């Protein structure tokens, strides 16, 4: 942490937590031309935890999330996921095929823009089924019933399960994305501004669904948002990013009630 932060005690390494992190990133750096998008960022996410990443546009939070989804590769950095029956190795060493399969089986993502996450002209159930098809499911009835279960868990109205996303409202599109993301019970669920751009009332309903899923399934989540309200509702721990670096991290209530870094204080002020 920079010298600017207040004089709070440095925190020790975890001692009581017996579980190993699901996600570990170390020394993540990435430059795009002259822009240093990430500066030596370290992240750990523990099982069942919701990590919120907050920061303004250009802070590097979305770049970091793209790395977590193996959509981009850093200049430097080590990324590991603790997955059942998989060797522990830096995931950036995987080839494109292995990355794709790992992503399909173990990582779910909900994008702010549903066009990134959905085939808009295929059916909603088909969007969910495609994920299962990539993972090798070949029974039509199983595809159908698993798609139904996932859509139902995302509180998507089943009467419309074969409607095309292009015909649906923004909130419903996000539910289809969510259903697709959770259909294979991923080890990691990534949420990139999942409710940004939705009406406030719709946003509340989608967040509510996410909370319920988190409560019932203990899904490990990483949530990126510039909206402190969303982060506060969802996150157990918060990481504050600025100019590609982590300026502060802590328990959500601590970051919001006792922010240590001038930038975080500014953010919290702005929210109030």
């Amino acid at each position, binding site marked *: 942490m920079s010298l600017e932060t207040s*004089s*709070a*005690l440095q925190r020790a390494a*975890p001692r*009581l937590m017996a579980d190993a992190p699901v996600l570990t990133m170390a020394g993540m750096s990435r430059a795009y031309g002259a822009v240093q998008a990430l500066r030596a960022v370290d992240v750990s996410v523990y099982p069942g935890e919701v990590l919120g990443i907050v920061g303004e546009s250009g802070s590097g939070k979305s770049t970091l999330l793209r790395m977590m989804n193996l959509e981009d590769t850093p200049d430097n950095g080590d990324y590991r996921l603790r997955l059942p029956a998989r060797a522990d190795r830096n995931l950036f060493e995987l080839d494109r095929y292995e990355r794709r399969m790992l992503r399909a089986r173990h990582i779910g993502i909900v994008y702010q823009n549903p066009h990134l996450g959905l085939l808009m002209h295929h059916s909603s159930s088909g969007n969910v089924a495609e994920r299962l098809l990539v993972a090798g499911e070949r029974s039509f009835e199983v595809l159908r019933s698993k798609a139904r279960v996932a859509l139902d868990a995302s509180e998507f109205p089943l009467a419309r399960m074969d409607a095309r996303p292009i015909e649906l409202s923004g909130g419903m599109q996000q539910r289809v994305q969510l259903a697709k993301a959770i259909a294979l019970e991923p080890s990691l669920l990534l949420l990139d501004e999942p409710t940004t751009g939705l009406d406030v009332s719709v946003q509340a309903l989608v967040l*509510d669904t996410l909370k319920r899923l988190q409560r019932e399934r203990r899904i490990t989540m990483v949530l990126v948002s510039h909206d402190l309200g969303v982060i506060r509702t969802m996150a157990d721990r918060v990481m504050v990013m600025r100019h590609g670096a982590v300026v502060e991290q*802590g328990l959500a209530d601590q970051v919001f009630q*006792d922010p240590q870094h001038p930038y975080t204080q500014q953010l*919290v002020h702005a929210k109030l």
Partner: protein
Amino acid sequence: MNANSFILRVQGLAKTFRMFHLEATLHAFEDVSFDLSAGEFLLLRGHNGAGKSTLLRTIWRSYLPVAGQVLYQSRHGEIDLANAADVDIALLRREEIGFVTQFLNARPRVAAQDIVAEPLLLAGHERTAALEQARHWLDQFGVRRELWRAYPSTFSGGEQQKVNLARALILPQRLLLLDEPTASLDAGARAALVSRLAELKAQGVAMIGVFHHPGDVAQLIDREINLGTRVVAPAQHEEPQYVAV
């Protein structure tokens, strides 16, 4: 002293708030030290602004201390809450340390009985039994039966407070931090609260409390400590204004 004779040992604990936009530092308290044993009830005294609530929140780690130690004997071993890793604090909050306020963090579309049962479910209790207990405590705190399956986000403040207490006290913790839980509580619920606290205390739960009217819990108090008045902050600011509660 034998390491096992206290559950919490606070030594030289200090908290200041730095407010960068004012280029100012608020001193909440400093050099606070005390020990707390299992089953002991400690009352924090002091005038407004002495930092009583701030001290509770510093132990709970909503606030980060700037100096001192908060040695806590967890089931997993001794740990200093003042500098413990965030995930360790989160673990202790799930399993061992409770914080009781008058405010409920109601969530939309979660029924009262589910909110109350949640700590038991997270601790691995079976769902039917957990709901059974939840209904028992809602009843004890005087929440009417017809509200148990309703969503507390629409309840009155008083009813929300009762749901909150039922939730906060359903799972026996090892250490309870009580931040004016009796404020604005009706007599029946207050009696239920005191009796539940007495029961937990008898089970060995250690408690630190801040009460507007300590008389409410007079029979529980074992010891008091008085937070000094050497606070630099203006009296009307118990906490810095940016604090979101």
